[in-house]
């Protein structure tokens, strides 16, 4: 499975367009992370707990995107994009989407 932010692939031809696939995950932070973030709000800088949390979420979102594409029989997902949005009560959604395609050697 090729995952890419590009719109075309070198040496490959798109033979089937299977439509949009997406993967998302909503995660809440736990108390420890929230407490540290409170301190960091005074001195500024990176909120490492949040960075980790969103990295894990992003990996999971990509994994779900890949599973959906695989179940459709796709060879590649092109033009992948990420979006993060804050949901109420301290939870964030990480969302990945792209276009599932079948390809063959040109």
């Amino acid at each position, binding site marked *: 499975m*090729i*995952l*890419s*932010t*590009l*719109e*075309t*692939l*070198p*040496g490959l031809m798109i033979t089937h367009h299977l439509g949009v696939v997406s993967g998302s995950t909503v995660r809440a932070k736990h108390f420890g992370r*929230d407490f540290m*973030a409170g301190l*960091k*709000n*005074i*001195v*500024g*800088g*990176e*909120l490492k707990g*949040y*960075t980790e949390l*969103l*990295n894990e979420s*992003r990996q999971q979102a*990509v994994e779900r995107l890949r599973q959906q594409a695989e179940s459709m029989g796709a060879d590649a997902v092109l033009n*992948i*994009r*990420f*979006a*993060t*949005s*804050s949901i*109420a*009560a*301290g939870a*964030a959604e990480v969302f990945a989407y792209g276009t599932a395609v079948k390809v063959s050697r040109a």
Partner: protein
Amino acid sequence: MWEFYSFLFLLVVGYGVGTYLERSHFASIRRREQELINKAIVFTVRDLPELPGNPQLRLVAAGTVVSIDYFKRIVAMLHHFFGGNISSYESLLERARREAILRMREKAHAIGATMIFGVRLETSAINDGNPKTTTGVELIAYGTAIIPDHTAGATPQLWHTPA
């Protein structure tokens, strides 16, 4: 009175520690950018040029969540009143964005990629349930890392570094 003192304390701590942390972060960013010169070059272009052999493509993504310090937050509130550029936020976002790009390039470099194509940058505010207060800002950078096919000869030089 107690409230005023704690406000003053937070202001001083925020300014002192915040400025120090920002300076050392910028120093670290500059050093790592120097180390990565001519490695894992970033392109926002979405079409791949002709490359020899069968280069491998990998999705790379990296991000960072940053928060502004207390002093700058107060300054930003004053700016909010008078209008104009909020330069304290500008420097925060600049270093976070450069950090995200650096992390993406470091990841790509670690898997043997020499270029990253179709790079996109994304910014989003993370809040703690109250949409009026922002806990942090997330900056992410992602793209398609290209691992060249070394068996098929040298990859053409697609960039040049100004002297």
